[in-house]
């Protein structure tokens, strides 16, 4: 499986936890990149190909909503799938993000296995 995945979250410990769920889902550790905020995530996208992004919304420097605006404005990134993993439950904000191209949302708190299932499902969709 050559899918390349990017975890965007300001919490190093949560990135570590998400990374483990992604490995359980079948993503090789070497294919997983990390970013601590939206700006760092944009730098990663500019530097290497990515297929799936797991995105937190509440982050310093550049938050998830700002990142989605920048990502959706770049036609070179239109094939990247973005899934939001966040405590954000406001339906208006989530609807706005979906209208900008966000694929799905997993609310925190989540069970690690639920995240692994979601990643497996996203990867299957990317490959099909």
């Amino acid at each position, binding site marked *: 499986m050559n899918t390349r995945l990017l975890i965007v979250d*300001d*919490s*190093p*410990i*949560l990135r*570590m*936890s998400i990374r*483990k769920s992604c490995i359980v889902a079948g993503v090789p550790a070497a294919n997983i990149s990390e970013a601590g905020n939206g700006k760092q995530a944009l730098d990663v996208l500019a530097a290497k190909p990515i297929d799936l992004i797991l995105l937190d919304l*509440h*982050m*310093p420097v550049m938050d998830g909503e700002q990142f989605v605006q920048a990502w959706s404005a770049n036609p070179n990134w239109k094939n990247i799938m973005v899934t939001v993993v*966040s*405590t*954000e*439950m*406001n*339906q*208006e904000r989530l609807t706005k993000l979906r209208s900008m191209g966000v694929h799905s949302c997993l*609310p*925190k*708190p*989540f*069970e690690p296995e639920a995240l692994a299932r979601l990643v497996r499902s996203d990867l299957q969709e990317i490959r099909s």
Partner: protein
Amino acid sequence: MSNLDHSVIQKLVAVALERTVFISTEPAPSQLSSGQPTYSATIKFGGQATGSLMLVATEGFARQLAAGFTCMSPGEVDLPTFGQDAMNELANIVGGQVVTALGGEHKAIRLGLPGRGDPTEFTLRPGDCITCHLDSMGDVLQIVYVGETDASLAA
């Protein structure tokens, strides 16, 4: 306006702990012992509802929490590296739960970023706080919530 009481907050935190890091807890009547090493984190929210939340954990509880996030055994956890980050993430998760419980799905309520807690901020007006405790294998987590009746803390 606040539909949150002691038992609701206690349950929100217990569910978040069990679901995210597989820590089972029991309501604990006990207070944290003064002088005990602790880790703390606060998070604030504002908008159509305003409030603050502070979590204070004994060192043992912070170790269990960090172990849960990192999938390590508690003895393997490097607490200086992961303890504060684990507390911040728990504050973020519980803050999101509180905002949702206050109607955040349909109200404009913005959750802030978590940070290291300052316990003195919450002891200034103890009568306005909801305080509860959870116990996991003798390790204690204290939760302090201040709703919008004390907007000065969330400014």
